[in-house]
């Protein structure tokens, strides 16, 4: 697996050198959160009730925003062609790219998200379950973002299509993620189902995304 780690390490250095990745996503996230009280009014009780859901939706949209860039650069500069000729199956390349995107964008977001909960009066004892659920859910979000990116890699205005294609897949993750965030105790059914979703996507998404990339390489 040294070969896969080379790809993840390269993407990490690229993200840190170019910056932008986590920064813009967190910026977008905070903007969405700030808009909520402006739109719904400063009623603390209302905000507290919708806080976990709102944080999850903002996280989901922020990851979606950065989805398009996962394969774009590699497709345009020919790296994808060269990687397809590597000994590493394309499925593992997709997994590595998705993990790199998770480490550079979704994970920082998931770590930071509950901290911005105070803006919308998040109940403090909800912070820990929210954190745990978001850490887990963000993997699923990144993997699906990678699938959306693979499907629209060569399209000019792919961004819109990615959202339309991927949001239906985000529905289960949102439902179980928010349920797990409102947990009385940490580990309970919705968190387990969320884990199941993550594990299932670990297997299914790379296969589908690799097939999509192959369609563009052909």
């Amino acid at each position, binding site marked *: 697996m040294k070969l896969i780690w080379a790809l993840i390490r390269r993407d990490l250095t690229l993200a840190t050198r170019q910056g932008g990745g986590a920064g813009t996503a967190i910026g977008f996230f905070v903007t969405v959160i700030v808009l909520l009280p402006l739109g719904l009014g400063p009623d603390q009780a209302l905000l507290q009730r919708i806080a976990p859901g709102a944080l999850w939706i903002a996280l989901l949209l922020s990851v979606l925003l950065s989805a398009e860039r996962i394969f774009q650069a590699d497709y345009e500069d020919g790296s994808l062609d060269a990687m397809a000729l590597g000994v590493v199956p394309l499925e593992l390349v997709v997994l590595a790219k998705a993990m790199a995107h998770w480490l550079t964008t979704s994970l920082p977001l998931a770590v930071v998200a509950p901290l911005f909960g105070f803006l919308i009066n998040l109940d403090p004892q909800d912070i820990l379950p929210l954190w745990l659920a978001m850490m887990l859910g963000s993997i699923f979000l990144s993997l699906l973002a990678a*699938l959306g990116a693979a*499907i*629209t890699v060569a*399209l000019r*205005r*792919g961004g819109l*299509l990615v959202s*339309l*294609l991927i*949001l*239906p*897949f985000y*529905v*289960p993750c949102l*439902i*179980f993620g928010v*349920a797990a965030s409102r947990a009385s105790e940490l580990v309970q059914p919705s968190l387990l*189902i969320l884990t199941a*979703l993550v594990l299932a996507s670990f297997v*299914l998404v790379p296969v*589908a995304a690799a*097939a*999509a990339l*192959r*369609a*563009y390489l*052909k």
Partner: protein
Amino acid sequence: MQKFANPARFLKLAETLLPPIWGVTILAFAAGLYMSLVTAPPDYQQGETVRIMFVHVPAAWMALMVYTSMAAASIMAAIFRHPLADMAAKAAAPIGAMFCLLALITGSLWGKPMWGAWWVWDARLTSVFVLLLLYLGYMAVWQAIEDPHRAALIARIVAIAGFINVPIVKFSVDWWNSLHQGASVFRMGGPTIDARMLWPLLIMALAYTLLFVGLLLVAMRSEIAQRKLRQLRLAGIEGR
């Protein structure tokens, strides 16, 4: 290797099948309408509004059945590399999307008199809504990619992935629904459906299915014609 299956055989088949299909479809609709509007009894609770069921339920069934057949066609196309299967899925998508839309509209028209709200986050209606998004996503893929062969490869993946997503969404929305509301009051015509209610439902479902098959054959004929048109135009350009 994508040898273009000769469509002549399919076109001849469509030519012979279409007239009888249209005939039976009209009969089925006539019988179905008569039975659902006249012979079926009003519901003891809902009164006449239960008749909306005869257009709502078949549309919902068809929306799911058409998406399932699109996924099946995509799997067939992936395994047997048969381009007609891709075209069948592409042709079926708009028809399925229309059924889905009709299921949602009639569902909300049924919900308004029953619960006083145009849209109720009932588990089934929500799943059908997500299904509509899957249809739109699938159709958008064909629009977004010019090269037909490449579009077919991508559309297959979207159809199959979407198909895997449908039960997951259904499960999560049911679970979510039980979390926020009690089991929805929206029972489909009580525990055992009265025979006089069941027959119109089945006849209407049959009519919808026949209409789908007929429209699918015509739409596939158009897809073949469109591909032929594209090749004629390309051949035209190459000549100059």
